[in-house]
Structure formats: structure tokens, C-alpha cells
């Protein structure tokens, strides 16, 4: 029994690459009159169609600039597709650049609530999860310290703990976590494994085909905005390797 959780219907994304960026009003009008505003159309994604089922661990492979991150942004709703639609059934937690929403002047404690709200959790949920977040990130002694005094590893630990404190329906992971030291990384992997076992759908983007093979059940290969191949993770990764 397969239940579709993400359906990407013929999504295309077009960027207008203006040859020069125009940031001033005067420049804009002068250029407009002279008809010098030129755009080059760039299709970052071209007619991508995918379905991801509930509970799947889905990998996306491709070279740099192939459109992997753009696809993730479309799925998580940050970018609106130029054409096509994306249907999502469930909540999404993005693990893209942990701690993007932190305020460096606030303490870790205050940031937990701020970041939780950014991910769409209310205060009650966060109060309930507070203990767990603090103990998972191992920051008990520093909880009232402003984040600007934290090391980057500590910030990443806090970010991961918050992002994964409430189990989402879909977890998006861009480049496997290089969070903190190896001990903490193990903890992260374990938590993700738990999520997999609990039936959370995971979308996983990586350059490393090894990791994709190891973790994913199915995979997609994207090249220059086109979907080259979808299918069993091993087969897709092998094909991708051959062509590299």
C-alpha cells in the first residue's frame, strides 16, 4: 500500500538572469527608456515530475548547479514554480543550513522559542520539548549565554536539536550533517534512523553516492534542470557514476 506524500507535477522554474542588476530608480528608468534591460532566461528546473511515497527515504543526486537545491526549495515552498504544481500532504522540516533563523543577540533559551516559531511550532509545544532539546544538544551549562558567544559547532548542535524536536511528516536534508564532533554526528544519525523507522519521509540530497546508496530506497538523478532518471537508489547511483 503506497501513499503519495509529495507529488511534483511538471515543475519548471525560470530565472531571469538580468545581465546587470539594477538597484536604483534612476538607472531603472534610464535603462527602461533606452530599452537596455535585457533578460536571459535560465531554466533551473525543466518539467520535473516526481512522486514520493510515505515512509520513503528518497535521494537526489546530481552535479553542482544541477538544480538539486532549487528542487528542495520548491518542495519546501520557498520558491514558487513558474509552471507546474507541488502537492504536499503533511508538515515539512527543512534541515537546510541549521540555525538560519537564530538571533545572535538572544540567549540559547530565547532562540529555542524563536526558532521553534519559525518552524511553525507554538510556545506550548516548545515548552514541552525544551528539556529534550537542551539535553540532546548538550548545552545545559550555556543555555543563558547569548548565541554570539557560541562556537559554530554549538550553534549547529542547537539548530539540529530544534529542527528535529518535533517529528515532521517530511524531513529535508541537504548534504549530510557535518554537525559538531563525531560523537554528536552519531547521535544525529541515530535520531534520523529513528525517524525512518517511525515512518517519516526523508528527502536526502548529496554529492556522495555512497551515502545515498546506504540510506535511500529510491533516488532521482538531476542534470542541468532535467530529470535524468528515477528509480532504485543503487541503479540510479551506478548510472550516475558511469556518466560522471
Amino acid at each position, binding site marked *: 500500500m503506497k501513499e503519495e506524500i509529495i507529488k511534483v507535477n511538471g515543475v519548471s522554474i525560470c530565472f531571469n538572469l538580468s545581465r546587470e542588476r539594477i*538597484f*536604483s530608480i534612476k538607472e531603472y528608468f534610464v535603462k527602461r527608456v533606452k530599452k537596455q534591460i535585457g533578460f536571459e532566461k535560465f531554466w533551473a528546473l525543466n518539467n520535473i515530475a516526481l512522486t514520493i511515497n510515505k515512509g520513503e527515504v528518497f535521494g537526489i543526486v546530481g552535479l553542482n548547479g544541477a538544480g538539486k537545491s532549487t528542487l528542495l526549495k520548491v518542495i519546501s515552498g520557498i520558491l514558487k514554480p513558474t509552471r507546474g504544481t507541488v502537492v504536499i500532504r503533511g508538515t515539512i522540516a527543512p534541515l537546510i543550513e541549521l540555525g*538560519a533563523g537564530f*538571533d545572535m543577540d*538572544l540567549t540559547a533559551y530565547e532562540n529555542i*522559542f*524563536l526558532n521553534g*516559531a519559525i518552524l511553525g511550532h507554538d510556545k506550548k509545544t516548545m515548552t514541552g520539548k525544551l528539556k529534550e532539546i537542551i539535553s540532546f544538544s548538550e548545552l545545559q551549562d550555556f543555555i543563558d549565554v547569548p548565541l554570539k558567544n557560541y562556537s559554530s559547532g554549538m550553534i549547529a548542535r542547537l539548530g539540529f536539536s530544534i529542527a528535529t524536536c518535533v517529528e515532521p511528516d517530511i524531513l529535508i536534508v541537504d548534504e549530510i550533517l557535518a554537525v559538531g564532533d563525531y560523537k554528536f554526528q552519531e547521535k544525529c544519525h541515530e535520531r534520523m534512523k529513528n525517524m525512518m523507522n517511525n515512518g517519516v519521509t526523508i528527502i536526502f540530497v548529496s554529492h556522495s553516492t555512497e551515502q545515498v546508496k546506504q540510506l535511500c530506497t529510491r533516488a532521482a538523478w538531476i542534470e542541468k534542470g532535467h530529470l535524468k532518471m528515477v528509480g532504485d537508489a543503487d541503479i540510479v547511483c551506478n548510472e550516475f557514476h558511469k556518466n560522471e
Partner: protein
Amino acid sequence: MKLYLQNFLKYKHLLRELVLRDIKVKYRRSILGIFWSLLNPLMMMIVMTIVFSNLFKIQIENFMVYFLTGQILFSFFSEATTIAMGSIVTNANLIKKVYIPKYIFPISKVLSSFVNLLFSLIAVFMIMLITKASFSATIFLIPVAFLYLLIFTVGVGLMLSVLTVFFRDMNHIYGIVILAWMYLTPIIYPIEIIPIKYLLFIKLNPMYYFIAFFREIILHGNIPSMELNLICILISLISLVLGLYAFYKNQNKFMLYI
């Protein structure tokens, strides 16, 4: 429409957290903290009273309260719109990485300035007590006055934030615009000193009506006329609708410019 409302409700916690964050960060490490919201207009008033009260003594009965009522409203408007203007650009990092309804940012900035305004209201009451001005029951209409102004300011803030994404010059221009706007608003001077032929400039200024409304309540103890109410409602709704429309039409393009 229902979908938008649902989405807004989902993120109302974020709105609250952002407003709280702004207030906390603004006064962190200052000794007097939030009291500055109260002290600032008071000190401004003292300076202005020393400089101007002799000039306009004849026309204005209670200069200190007259000035303060205009000043707190205008400085709320100018502070809120100025910060809201840049809010999309300064939060670019977040907008690019997590899905959040983008209008949250300008609105949260306006609201955190609004909290400041509420504190400055205490300053007005203090001066009213000191100058033995009479309190009339019309002060219970203050929420109405503030609501009109708040809606107007949210609209202007939304419009400016959109404009700034595409034209960064706005940051530089707006400082001058707001200065000119302030002098075109009867804050320090009474409207009577304006020659009839220039009166139109004042009458075209939305801020004039909000301040007139507020002074009517505080200084004169009158219930503002139906006409003034309608003007205020109309201006604030037009501003809000224009702001939301401009935002809605352009928000998908933001990603490419920030």
C-alpha cells in the same frame, strides 16, 4: 482567502516571538531598558518646549501636551515605517531557507514599534498630570485612534518593504522624505499659522488627521466628528489594501532580488 487566514493563524506565534525579540534586543544591556521608550519622548519634549514654546505661546494653550500628542504618533509612524521598509532585505537569509509568509517581517516591525508607542502614552499621561490638564472620558477612545494609525502604518510599511527589495535607494531617500513629512505635519506648530493658500498641503497629509483625532480626544475632550472618523477609516483602509496588494503581487519575485 480562508487558506490565507489559516496560514496566518499558524504563524501568529512567530509574529509574537519576532515582536518580543525586537523589544528584547533593542534594550538589551541598556541600564534603563524599556524606560527609554518613555524617557525619549519626554526629553524630546523638554528640548522642544524650551526652543519653541515662546514662539507659539499665544496660540497653544498647553504646549507640552500639544507637542507630545503629535510627537509620539509621528515618531511611531516614522520609526515603524523605516524599520519595516528594510525588513525583507535584512531577513533575506531566513526567507531563502525556510518557508515563512513574508509579510510577517514588516508587520512584526510595525508591531514592535507599536509597543513603544504604548509606553510613550504613559509619558503623555504624566505630563497631563503635571500640567494639571483635565482628563475627560474621551480618553477611552485612544484605542480607536491608535487602531486607525496602526492600520495605516502597516499599509505604508508593506508598500515600502516591497519597493526597497527592488530599489535599494529607498533607504537613503526615505530619511529625507520623513523629515519633510514631519515638518509638513502640525506637530510643533499650530495649524492656524499656516497661510490659507498652503493649507491644502496639510489637508492632503494623512498624518494630520490621525494627530487631529488624537488631540481632539486628549486635549479638547471632544468625541471626534463623524467626518473625521470617516476620513481616518478611509485613509487607513486604502493604505492597507494598497500595501497588501503590492505585497501579494510581488512577493514571489523577492527571492530573485534579495
